[in-house]
């Protein structure tokens, strides 16, 4: 790994660490049902922008870290993140040219897929969890997406111009 490439990775890693901090922030229960899945949004963005560096493998590792910090079944978030990273990388060229409305809809579908996989694994493993406000994070995540996108694009181009 050349030093030039690893220096370009650092900003991305920092966004993931900040995302993890946001994800494990202790908040009251009623707020937590409406928090977006920050790491899912980050995985979608970076898999779309830099699909060669941030693809299914890194998504899987982030998922394992998330599983450990949430205390969920080891591999549950890993599998879900890995899947949405796969879809994003597969269609990243298409997604890059999508207008904002269409991209938001795609992100909505990806987040729904993410939640569905988590929910489904809970169901198969016999871990009981009611399903109604599983939609909260999906909808809020979609609404947050344009802002996250603008912010992360800023991070991306600033770090590139500095390097």
């Amino acid at each position, binding site marked *: 790994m050349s030093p030039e490439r690893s220096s370009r990775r650092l900003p991305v890693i920092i966004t993931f*660490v900040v995302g*993890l*901090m946001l*994800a*494990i*922030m*202790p*908040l*009251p*229960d009623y707020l*937590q*049902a409406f*928090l977006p899945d920050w790491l899912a949004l980050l995985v979608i963005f970076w898999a779309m922008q830099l*699909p*060669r560096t941030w*693809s*299914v*493998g890194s998504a*899987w590792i982030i*998922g*394992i*870290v998330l599983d*450990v*910090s*949430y*205390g*969920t*079944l*080891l*591999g*549950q978030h*890993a*599998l879900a993140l*890995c*899947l949405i990273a*796969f879809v994003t*990388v*597969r269609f*990243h*060229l298409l997604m890059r040219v999508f207008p904002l409305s269409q991209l938001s809809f795609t992100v909505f579908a990806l987040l729904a897929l993410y939640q569905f996989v988590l929910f489904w*694994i809970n169901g198969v*493993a016999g*871990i*009981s*969890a*009611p399903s109604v*406000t599983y939609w909260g994070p999906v909808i809020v995540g979609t609404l947050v997406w344009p802002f996250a996108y603008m912010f992360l694009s800023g991070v991306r181009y600033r770090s590139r111009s500095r390097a």
Partner: protein
Amino acid sequence: MVASRGNNTNPARIPALGLRVIALILLSIIVMYFDHRENHLDVIRRTVGAAVYPIQLAVDAPVRLWGWLGQSTTSRNDLELELGRLKAERLLTNARLQRLTALEAENARLRSLLEARDRVRDEVRVAEILAVDANPYEHNLIIGIGSRDGVYNGQAIVDADGVVGQVIETGVMTAQAVLISDADHALPVEVNRNGLRTIAVGTGEIDRLDLPFLPNNADIRAGDLLVTSGLGGAFPAGYPVAVVNAVTRIPHEPFADVTATPAAALDQVREVMLIWSQPQETAEDDE
């Protein structure tokens, strides 16, 4: 693979993406299987957990800083120390006091039996809550002491008012605990008034427990105090768990519909106590 061969000329094609994703999904499934069935993966959890620990501390820092700022602006340094000490002391005293009601009832039962044995006093230790689970349907906590301090899986956790939960994962410096209100948690309890034994099951709601296995003619009514019966082995006996708030007897149904409110303030605690209970058997063996 066949479909992607046509894309070989495409500069944006990511090599072996399909293969990689299938391998990772299989790996996830294997890992999940072993994590669910057996606990062979504790090592992974502990290692990754230790790596994430600084992040957890950093997330918790603003909350701590806020608390610290609040204290230092309202009182002087020595007052603050005194306050902290008194609070910790009160917590410990309350924990001993809360067993009093249970002890009274038990004392009355045992008075007739001359060979009443001395109760074993439990060791307790205060731990701070570092984080709560972000998933609203799993009532989990992360506390600031771990296997380094002798925490073990299944250990009982109480606060000043009653039982909070039990440890399910032990890291080196942190431990994860499940609350009694978690939908997957069940706890053997008895009615303090008459010793009726049953199981209190979490509902996923922070302020409600269900007692699903009580027959319609069971002697239980609203206001009854439920205490741990100690029969499950994980919890020492006699700690308050919940107060019954409604008993609905439905004719034609085998079981009554009984709900209870947890005695501990499950969503308000910042500090909890871990109990090292000495099992009754070893005390008998020593005699």
